[in-house]
């Protein structure tokens, strides 16, 4: 069934048992919403130099948006910013592929659990759900960096 391509077990697992959920201290906080459906996320980023020490979040939304935030936390915490940006860009590329990218080994190595979202990219209405936390992370990181500079 086609639904299984969207709701991979990996995604449902992350949805039911989210990683790193809850708000902890951070250098910057953002609140992003998906105005068409009411999904919301509050996300904080804590940096130590170029290293992401923590990404914490609280939100409400569908399984795709919540699982995506959980995968983001698992993937990005502990990474260098340059590496994290590469992961974010790869994920964005996959999500904007309209189902046309079949993740290869190289992509799977970068994205790990996040390759499970490949099926979601076939559903335009749901791509925004999957990207919500990633856009919030990008925004929060930019804010943390600019605040760090001015401080």
């Amino acid at each position, binding site marked *: *069934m*086609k*639904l299984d391509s*969207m*709701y991979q077990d990996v995604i*449902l697992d992350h949805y039911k048992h989210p990683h790193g959920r809850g708000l902890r201290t951070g250098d910057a906080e953002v609140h992003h919403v998906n105005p*068409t*459906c*009411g*999904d*919301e996320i509050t996300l904080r980023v804590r940096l130590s130099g170029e290293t992401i020490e923590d990404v914490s979040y609280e939100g*409400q*939304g*569908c*399984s*795709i*948006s919540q699982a995506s935030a959980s995968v983001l936390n698992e993937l990005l915490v502990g990474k260098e910013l340059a590496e994290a940006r590469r992961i974010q860009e790869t994920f964005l590329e996959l999500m904007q592929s309209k189902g046309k990218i079949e993740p290869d080994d190289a992509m799977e190595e970068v994205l790990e659990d996040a390759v499970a979202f490949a099926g979601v990219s076939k*559903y335009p209405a*749901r791509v925004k*759900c999957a990207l919500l936390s990633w856009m919030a992370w990008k925004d929060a990181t930019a804010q943390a960096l600019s605040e760090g500079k001015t401080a």
Partner: protein
Amino acid sequence: MTILPGLLDTEAIRKDFPILDRTVHDGKKIVYLDSAATSQKPRQVLDALNEYYERHNANVHRGVYTIAEEATALYEGARDKVAAFINAPSRDEVIFTKNASESLNLVANMLGWADEPYRVDHDTEIVITEMEHHSNIVPWQLLSQRTGAKLKWFGLTDDGRLDLSNIDEIITEKTKVVSFVLVSNIMGTVNPVEAIVRRAQEVGALVVVDASQAAPHMPLDVQALQADFVAFTGHKMCAPTGIGVLWGRQELLEDLPPFLGGGEMIETVSMHSSTYAPAPHKFEAGTPPIAQAVGLGAAVDYLTSIGMENIARHEHAITEYAVRRLQEVPDLRIIGPTTAEDRGATISFTLGDIHPHDVGQVLDEQGIAVRVGHHCARPVCLRYGIPATTRASFYLYSTPGEVDALVEGLEHVRNFFG
């Protein structure tokens, strides 16, 4: 097959709607339960659109040649049909807009630019309700921000109805306009017009009724409503998108200033100033949506041939059946009235803690089309402490079998996420 008293002959009606024969996802017949968002279109309306473009297309109110006269007659004929459909005292009280949002924005802007006694300013108050569609909230917020007028609203009771217990404090001598929805687009609630109109008239406030979810589903009589303005849209009542209606009382339309300026709405123009055409043309600047108006006329003919009383009776029967069947689904909570009394055929619900997006996705896989989200009525979701709902809405072509399909589909959703 479930037979309910009051049902229309849906087998015959569905033959008029070609899209209802469509299949999706490998042969699953579409179960269209999103008529509150937009209705499907009968062949009669599609034919009218085609015939207009194939035989009569020309701009209106301009040409002296044959097809221009025909286009004008068809466009103005649609106005006659709409006027009769809503029992307007005069055809000149029917203004064509592009949708209900534009109709409501038009009223707000008329009042914002009006002279006394209509002017809305910092000493006055605007009243709406917490169950409005965003299109009947945001135009008034804008007017309030621009004029300094105070925006007030009626709250909601736990069972999805307007809380009118403090009506005398909400609508006061300062109130200039009261704008409210006749049938809620998210909860289906049919609001008590009379009580609100009576109080508004006591204080001399204008009454605006958003009838977007009423006009398609029940007899609409603007004289019986005793409102000053009534707004609705064509695409929810079998007409194409891009055509809406604002009905307004004639003396108001004479007194109030135009909003959009341009061609069609003028009498004479010089480089220094202009005078305006009488209503309704005063409020219809530019080339109007001609084919869409013709389509609306055909939709009105279609609905009238079936009978609005009959459509209302059909939907009441479906609603009664649907609220009963839905409440058999474990963990399902209806947001809004839980009986069919004073309620339309739009039913919002939550299903345990399964997010509506996920509900809608799994239903889609079975060919069932519902709306998920906050339905452009986010304050209602906030009021009931939920992020969003799943909404099923029914129309003259909906069947009890489709209610059954929804209930079965929801069982499947529960299993999938269970």
